[in-house]
């Protein structure tokens, strides 16, 4: 049986179950405990699990993330919240030089089983410094794993897999998705996880493939409805869910099925996730393409604040439909 719960509740349920399953799991971050989380993802966890398992940190991103990395080398399994993924840059040395490289530099003697999670999105008028979407950036560093769930079920299934994974996993959530509701399997029916590296077809179609991740999946699904109703185009929507490991097989399968592809990606175009996906398609499925690969990314500038215009900078159904119509 499934229940309808929010994306926020789904992540919380995943955290709660892993806290229960493994006493080495500790949740830490700014305002995660007594305040119940800046976005209420961790609401109630401090009350249930107490100071040892749910830890409020000062505003010291480099310090507490580095602390988590060090603790993980000794077997603790920290799940660290960045209030915004945009604050990654404050902790970049820890997130990259230490977390991504320690295993390699030690010849496999050390490992780093951490999770860093938090929202990474534009669309809330919080300006350039708070609107970064760094999934492509971090996926570019071998040693790191990255995922970006679009639905409550995926969010829960992925966070549980991420916590159990023995490598550093960075989960990019979205403040605009936290309140979204969806079906999530009932815990009474057994342990529910979604493996890293598995994409999912969110909408079957035959004319063209829209490949997306995170909130862009929902924009692609909305665009697919418009394409069907107004243009008679039957679009398939593939949700990557996981950026690294990346489900290359699923990407090639949908391209070979529809022969046309538009990549929808809230990243900036230069080196975004979609740039990598595009390269894979032309390397491995060039002969199956009936049209050039097209992309809908955020317009190539820092995130604009103005509420009057920010949505135009991001992938949205209108921009997706326009791009599809250039090749379909």
């Amino acid at each position, binding site marked *: 049986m499934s229940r309808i719960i929010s994306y926020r509740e789904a992540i919380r349920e995943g955290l709660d179950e892993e806290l229960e399953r493994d006493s080495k799991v500790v949740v830490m971050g700014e305002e995660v405990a007594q305040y119940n989380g800046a976005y209420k993802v961790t609401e109630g966890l401090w009350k249930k699990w107490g100071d040892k398992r749910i830890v*409020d940190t000062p505003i*010291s991103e*480099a310090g507490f993330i580095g602390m988590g990395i060090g603790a993980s080398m000794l077997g603790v399994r920290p799940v660290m919240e960045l209030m915004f993924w945009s604050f990654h840059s404050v902790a970049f040395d820890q997130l990259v030089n230490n977390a991504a490289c320690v295993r390699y530099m030690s010849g496999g003697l050390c490992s780093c089983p951490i999770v860093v999670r938090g929202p990474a999105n534009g669309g809330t008028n919080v300006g350039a*410094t708070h609107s970064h979407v760094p999934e492509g950036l971090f996926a570019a560093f071998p040693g790191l794993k990255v995922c970006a769930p679009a639905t409550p079920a995926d969010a829960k299934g992925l966070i549980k897999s991420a916590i159990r994974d023995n490598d550093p996993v960075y989960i990019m959530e979205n403040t605009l998705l936290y309140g979204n509701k969806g079906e999530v399997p009932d815990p009474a029916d057994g342990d529910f996880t979604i493996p890293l590296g598995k994409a999912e077809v969110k909408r079957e179609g035959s004319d063209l493939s829209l490949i997306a991740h995170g909130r862009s999946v929902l924009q692609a699904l909305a665009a697919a409805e418009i394409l069907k109703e107004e243009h008679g185009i039957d679009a398939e929507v593939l949700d990557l869910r996981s950026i690294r490991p990346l489900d290359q097989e699923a990407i090639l399968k949908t391209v070979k099925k529809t022969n046309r592809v538009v990549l929808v990606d809230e990243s900036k175009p230069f080196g975004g996730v979609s740039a990598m996906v595009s390269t894979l398609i032309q390397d491995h499925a060039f002969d199956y393409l009936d049209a050039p690969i097209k992309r809908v990314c955020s317009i*190539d*500038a820092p995130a604009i*604040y103005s509420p009057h*215009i920010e949505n135009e900078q991001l992938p949205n159904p209108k921009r997706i439909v326009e791009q599809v119509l250039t090749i379909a």
Partner: protein
Amino acid sequence: MTSAETSSLDFASSPINQSLTPERKIELLTQMIRIRRFEQVGLKYYQSGKIGGFLHLYIGQEAIAVGTVSLGGEHDHYITAYRDHGHALAVGMSMNECMAEMYGKQTGCSKGKGGSMHFFAPDKNFWGGHGIVAGQTPLGLGLAYGLKYLEHEGCALCFLGDGAVNQGVYHESLNLAQLFEIPVVYVIENNGYSMGTSQQRSSSFEGCLAQRAEAYGMAWDVIDGSDLYEVRAKTHIAMERARKEHKPTVIEIDTYRYYGHSIADANHKKYRTPEEIENYKQNHDPINVFKRKLIDEGVVTEDQIKEITKAAADEAAESVKFAEESPAPTVADISTDVYWETDNDTDASKIGRHFFND
């Protein structure tokens, strides 16, 4: 010496305050009232959905921006974090350009690109408005480094909150400031809460946060932020030390914010007691404290204050009208102000591709 120990001192009689004319005193009071009115009006339109993003209000802290900036001269510069409305108005930015920025309009100080957290006015020596906690602290250092390098006698006032003092970059900045003898004054506006976490739960310290400066061999002081005279008297000493001796200082100004960390901070009445908030409003409100002093001094009357308050309210209402009637940015505007060279259509901008939209 703590602020509690010095609170009995009469800072009105310090030379820097003795030099204030009655007109200038009224002007300082007016500035504080204008900041408060501007924010109260901003709050109203934020709540009605006209303003997006976050809104970090300065209400309760006005004497700090007004008092410190009132000491500034031609070569004194200012930089702060995201709670920036007070500093912006104190340096002389207009309500119109600030309100229009919050409305995300082309006529805003940052053309609607920065929002509430990112006000800038380099022509008034105000370098923002910065969104990342403590991210501005090395920039303040850099402004002061620049002043010394360019051989200007001046200083940089770098404002930060008490939540910013545990970021590594702030400590790196303190070390550089003392090591290189840089004329920067770090002003910790201590409102007691690092977002929803009290100072006691977020910072390890002896005595006070400013005292950490001792570890770097740096001067420090603590100030009662409800008394504009005290803010001016003590900040003046730090600014003169910077200007004349190229020596940095950390000053910690005790203050309070009436609202949450931002208006999105729905918990701010949970982590603080109503009594705590009410006590500050009744006994330590910087505007009321200064009003009483000026009335006692015979500088201003209740009637004059009413007129000042009404004028500030009218000015704020007018700024809303200005913002409402101003044009919104266009899609084309998204792509300007990214690179100096492309904005100026230079030869350099024509070599190689700069943007990758299609």
